């Protein structure tokens, strides 16, 4: 079993056309949102093995969503599909005409999961949120989550976490970083190391990113992302996040609450443009108070200093010293 600890099986399910493969391509294969139009329908299950943080392998099972395949998953292939699942990510198209059927398939998946891997974590993504009017988004999300919550509680999965997502903004990164973070075992170590680094560097905040996907691993100002995910059972993600932010020191709460995802997005664009020079980037120093640097072969740190007059050498030396701990 020890080997399976490092190999995480993620099921990516949802009805046809809900945008599963698009997500996968953007987060893990460096597609731009525009590029995803080229993607065709997924036939049966598409496996991808992704290395994450060096020692972790994510086995992403992208399950084609057409009814023919779907039927198959719940009958012939059910033991194959639903065995040893760590995470189920179920994607709902908000524009879907057949919401009842969508939920029905979700519950059928839960039923199988209960049987074959009852410890699985369940995430639901309300995808294509960009197609909904701005003022209706929250309401729609609440209603949908309430329904799904009921459905999942019935099958013994009371801890349902949901995100509104869209490939056209940074919400996708936010959802996926929280999903992937829930799989990282030594999160508390990272967290405490990061706190120490923050105090020794006198920074406003430090954020830790995974190097290849640029998903947020943790930030120095978060209480504990991992704990947060496990702790709250209520659906209202937005509120939970906001309230946790307001507990923090004032100067942080003044910052953009969506900054993590935005940074993911910006840095990924930068990485993309660096590929034109045929090499990756090492450091970015903006105005002498924002430092982006690689910490290890699979992590990148994003440091915002309180004042910009610290000598650059000193800061870089600090980062170099910190590398040993990550």
């Amino acid at each position, binding site marked *: 079993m020890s080997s399976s600890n490092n190999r995480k099986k993620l099921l990516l399910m949802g009805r046809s056309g809900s945008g599963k493969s698009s997500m996968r391509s953007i987060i893990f294969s460096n597609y731009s949102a525009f590029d995803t139009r080229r993607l065709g329908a997924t036939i049966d299950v598409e496996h991808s093995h992704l290395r994450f943080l060096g020692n972790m392998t994510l086995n992403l099972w992208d399950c084609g969503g057409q009814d023919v395949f779907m039927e198959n998953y719940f009958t012939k292939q059910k033991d194959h599909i639903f065995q040893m699942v760590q995470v189920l990510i179920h994607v709902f198209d908000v524009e879907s005409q057949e919401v009842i059927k969508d939920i029905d398939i979700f519950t059928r998946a839960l039923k199988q999961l209960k049987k074959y891997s009852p410890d699985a974590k369940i995430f639901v993504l309300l995808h294509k949120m960009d197609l909904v009017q701005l003022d209706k988004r929250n309401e729609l999300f609440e209603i949908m989550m309430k329904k799904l919550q009921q459905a999942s509680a019935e099958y013994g999965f009371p801890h349902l976490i949901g995100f509104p997502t869209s490939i056209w903004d940074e919400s996708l990164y936010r959802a996926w970083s929280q999903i992937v973070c829930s799989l990282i075992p030594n999160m508390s170590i990272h967290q405490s190391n990061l706190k120490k680094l923050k105090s020794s560097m006198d920074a406003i905040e430090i954020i830790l990113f995974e190097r290849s996907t640029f998903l947020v691993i943790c930030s120095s100002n978060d209480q504990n992302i991992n704990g947060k995910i496990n702790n709250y059972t209520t659906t209202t993600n937005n509120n939970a996040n906001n309230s946790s932010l307001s507990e923090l020191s004032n100067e942080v709460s003044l910052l953009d609450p969506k900054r993590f995802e*935005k940074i993911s997005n910006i840095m990924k664009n930068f990485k993309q443009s660096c590929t034109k020079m045929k090499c990756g980037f090492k450091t970015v*120093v903006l105005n002498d108070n924002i430092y982006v640097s690689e910490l290890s072969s699979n992590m990148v740190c994003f440091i915002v200093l309180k004042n910009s007059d610290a000598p650059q050498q000193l800061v870089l030396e600090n980062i170099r010293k910190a590398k040993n701990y990550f």
Partner: protein
Amino acid sequence: MEVPSSELDSKAMILLMGLRKGGKSSICKVVFHNMQPLDTLYLESTSNPTVEHFSTLIDLAVMELPGQLNYFEPNYDSERLFKSVGALVYVIDSQDEYMSAITNLAMIMEYAYKVNPTINIEVLIHKVDGLSEEFKVDAQRDIMRRTGEELLELGLDGAQVSFYLTSIFDHSIYEAFSRIVQKLIPELSFLENMLDNLTQHSKIEKAFLFDINSKIYVSTDSNPVDIQVYEICAEFVDISIDLYDLYKPSDSNKKKGIKGPSSHRPQELKNVSQLENGTIIYLRQMIRGLALVAIIRPDDMDMESCLTVADYNVDIYKKSLEEIWKNSKVILPNPNIQTFNNQE
């Protein structure tokens, strides 16, 4: 910076013309308003002449004329219009039948030269994103040849026409506009020389002087422009601004007032990034919404000393830019019309 329309003549003006549905408004929106190229699909047809003011090292006005109008109707004051224009940009849709566009262009050129012999004629062979590489070359050659023939018939065979292959879905339109704008900047040769000097003395491989908002480059050094390098630099401007906006110094200081914005205010935007192979991308804010973006190759020198030298040289460069601007401001506004019209 805002100049009332009565003073419009004091600006260098670019006239954007072409047949209808050629993509003129899209170009304006994408270049000057950062509109997403896909959104331009939903633009309405432009029916009235519209003017975009665009202020960088020099003040520019880009006037877009609706394609369906006939400018040789006497009720248009086209004579005055063409006289006041520094450059005429004609947009040809490469995916459409372009013979009528070329005939139209030749007619417009004949008139423009008659009124204003110093006018720069620029032709954008537009919407080439859908064409294959060889087809692009074919189209360009064909259009150039046919334009030449038309002009020969009109007795204008000496006319200087520049052709650009452009598309709003990549950086080619920015590059083309950069070159068009550069032709209108009277101090261009000095700017270029200064950049040359700068690059020679600080291990800079390529340097651009960008307008931050539009990502048009006002000047570059005399080394050939590699479009990829240009793209990287343009994207670097975007990234720097986006990151800077996220952690604006004023935000965190608003509450406590520690050290105050005063310590941040005079500082200009500066961003340095090092890549794995040692190459450095360097950005410094300059005067009037311009930014210098440079690719530095340290070879075997260490990064710090390289940057120190670059910083020092860029400081001097910035001072000289200020100097040039101070002087040009006095001269430019009034004789502008004369320089464009009455030169010969």
